[in-house]
């Protein structure tokens, strides 16, 4: 109400300045409708409504330094793969914001990130049904060049409600060169930053045993410090975060402090890029509701330190961060063999090699205990730099991309994954998945506008569902049309009755920033890239219609 009142006041004031004459409205719209056919074999069940639809529209008004916006959302009912708690209609997001040289003030719903997000990040992934927007107020203040201070307070979106916890945060970032070296004499750039985030949630009664009632902290504080140093092609950055005792359903109500550290260093020059990263996470789940265990109400962001694969089969076993503890390492090299060289060919050749490895953290029992403690205890101790014995995930992949002529280009890739399905998907007793994936993706230009793309993907594994094969052919007429036919075949399933095909046909039409696509067939859950865009999709069988538009 406060914001509405404020705007009511603002309107007559700004009208005097011809506010509406200079204003501009823009927006976007997306609609996803699915018509379902039951297919018990692949796990697509009967859907009583026969069809379901998600849609949303953003409207944004900007005028000079003022902006306001809202998003209407409708889930009738939420399409498969979305949390059923989204069911309904409404305007869950609205804001008003104004800024000048030094200040930016936002009221309503907003998204924000401190540093790498280790202690605070509110964001949205509409196509995944993820939205933890904060609702409250946010101020950004930049008193001088190189200094950015932020303060915010809010509760988080919880489907159509707000979560019970209040989140308060402060962040400061100082670009030393912009503050002290205005003539830019030094080639080395140094940026320092720090944040403090606290959540408040009324205490509640949670028992750890028959006669053991937990005393829960109502206020939980966390802080983080970060740096970023770069010089020419070299860069090193890092962030350390600590969170005070925060017993929750996520960590089995232990009172141990949480911590996390990320360290990355890179070197790059034209034609070569190298990066090495390391990350430790220990008891860092941070939610604005103690008893929440799903993906809702996260205050912080703990991304996986692994490559995000873009092909269906290489993305089949994606790693998910283990917020209770993991040690991660990642390295990547990008190299371009020069254009016109003997090996590189007329257009050059791109090579990318990536490796990541994630293990458990070492957990030692507390003094007097024989196993790490459970609810109501301080949990365990863990040496900061020690890797645990259990492998969670390992990924080695290499990708080579080359344009052979003006008409033909080819990408080949090999991926080797080790995927701890027991830990990541919670399938106790299932053996580690060891998968080899081969990909070849060739595109041939028939004319200036017409092209044919052929994709072959092959996944070989003895574990889980066994071997998979995928073929895809796509015909495009730039910039408007595409037609794709694909089949995924689980030919190596140990269970001969489960060797299913997942055929699909997809066609689309693009008119500027308006796009209509139709897909008919069976769809496995995962990242889907067809007709020139990528998105995450749930498993389904039937017809999917997607309309997106922006103006």
């Amino acid at each position, binding site marked *: 109400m406060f914001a509405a009142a404020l705007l009511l006041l603002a309107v007559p004031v700004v009208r005097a300045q011809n506010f509406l*004459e200079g204003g501009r409205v823009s927006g976007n719209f997306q609609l996803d409708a699915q018509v379902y056919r039951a297919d018990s074999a692949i796990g697509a069940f009967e859907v009583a409504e026969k069809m379901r639809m998600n849609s949303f529209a953003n409207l944004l008004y900007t005028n000079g330094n003022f902006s306001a916006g809202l998003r209407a959302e409708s889930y009738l009912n939420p399409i498969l793969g979305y949390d059923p708690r989204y069911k309904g209609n409404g305007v869950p997001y609205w804001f008003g914001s104004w800024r000048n040289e030094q200040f930016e003030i936002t009221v309503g719903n907003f998204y924000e990130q401190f540093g790498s997000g280790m202690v605070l990040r509110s964001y949205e992934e509409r196509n995944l049904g993820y939205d933890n927007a904060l609702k409250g107020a946010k101020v950004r203040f930049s008193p001088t060049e190189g200094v950015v201070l932020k303060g915010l307070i809010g509760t988080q979106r919880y489907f159509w409600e707000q979560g019970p916890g209040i989140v308060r945060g402060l962040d400061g970032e100082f670009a030393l060169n912009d503050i002290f070296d205005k003539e830019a004499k030094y080639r080395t750039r140094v940026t320092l930053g720090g944040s403090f985030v606290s959540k408040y949630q009324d205490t509640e009664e949670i028992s750890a045993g028959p006669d053991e009632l937990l005393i829960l902290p109502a206020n939980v504080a966390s802080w983080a410090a970060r740096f970023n140093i770069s010089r020419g092609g070299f860069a090193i950055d890092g962030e350390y975060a600590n969170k005070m005792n925060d017993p929750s359903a996520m960590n089995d109500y232990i009172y141990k402090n949480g911590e996390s550290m990320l360290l990355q260093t890179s070197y790059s020059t034209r034609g070569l890029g190298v990066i090495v990263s390391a990350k430790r996470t220990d008891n860092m789940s941070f939610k604005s509701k103690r008893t929440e265990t799903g993906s809702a109400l996260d205050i912080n962001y703990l991304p996986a330190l692994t490559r995000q694969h873009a092909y269906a089969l290489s993305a089949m076993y994606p790693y998910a961060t283990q917020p209770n503890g993991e040690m991660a390492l990642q390295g990547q090299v990008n190299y371009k063999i020069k254009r016109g060289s003997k090996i590189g060919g007329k257009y050059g050749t791109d090579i990318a090699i990536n490796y990541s490895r994630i293990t458990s953290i070492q957990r030692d029992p507390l003094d007097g205990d024989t196993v790490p403690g459970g609810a109501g205890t301080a949990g365990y101790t863990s040496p900061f730099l020690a890797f645990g014995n259990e492998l969670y995930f390992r990924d080695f992949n290499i990708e080579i991309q080359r344009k052979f002529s003006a008409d033909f280009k080819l990408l080949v890739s090999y991926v080797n994954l080790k995927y701890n399905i027991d830990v990541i998907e919670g399938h106790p007793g299932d053996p580690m998945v060891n998968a080899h994936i081969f990909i070849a993706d060739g595109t041939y230009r028939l004319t200036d506008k017409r092209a044919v793309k052929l994709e072959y993907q092959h996944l070989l594994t003895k574990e889980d569902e066994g071997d998979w094969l995928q073929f895809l052919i796509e015909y495009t007429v730039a910039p408007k049309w595409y037609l794709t036919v694909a089949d995924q075949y689980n030919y190596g399933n140990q269970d001969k009755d489960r060797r299913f095909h997942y055929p699909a046909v997809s066609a689309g039409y693009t008119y500027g920033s308006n796009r209509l696509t139709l897909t008919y067939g069976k769809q496995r859950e995962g990242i889907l890239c067809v007709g020139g865009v990528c998105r995450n999709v749930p498993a389904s069988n039937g017809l999917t219609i997607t309309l997106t538009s922006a103006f």
Partner: protein
Amino acid sequence: MKKIIFFSLMFTFVMGAAAQDAEKNLKKLPAVNVKTLDGKVFNTADLNNDGKPMIVSFWALWCKPCINELTTIADVYQDWVEETGVKLVAVSIDDARSTSKVGPTVNGKGWDYEVLLDANGDFKRAMNVNMIPHTFLVNGNGEIVWQHTSFSEGSELQLIEMVRKLNRGEAVESH
């Protein structure tokens, strides 16, 4: 509920006003803070190309068609710059998971674009970007004159044709 009604009313109101001068009132690049590859805070309203056209393309490392688009343009980019003076600004919407990989990858691929990091999607939201790749064409006055989502082989030819039209002072279709 009241504020929702209020906002809807306000929008209907404003849209009416905006529709009246839609012709002359093209949307300018919004003022949002993003970061450059060396960690500097950058206001997107300051994007400019000395009065020449500019291409603003939203992409991410995990988006195959985006990489395809930028790789395809990279092959002809020098020719485009020499011929038309155009500049391409590649806005990465990769989040903290891979923002640090953007610089080394861009360099490793030998791309000469101006690269911005929009790690929490603020610029993306201000530009109403829904799916990527989403490419905008901005004229010499900083006004958005054309936009397109998706990439297929040959789309880049249409894009440069639009740039040439702008340089000749011809009207560019708004879609």
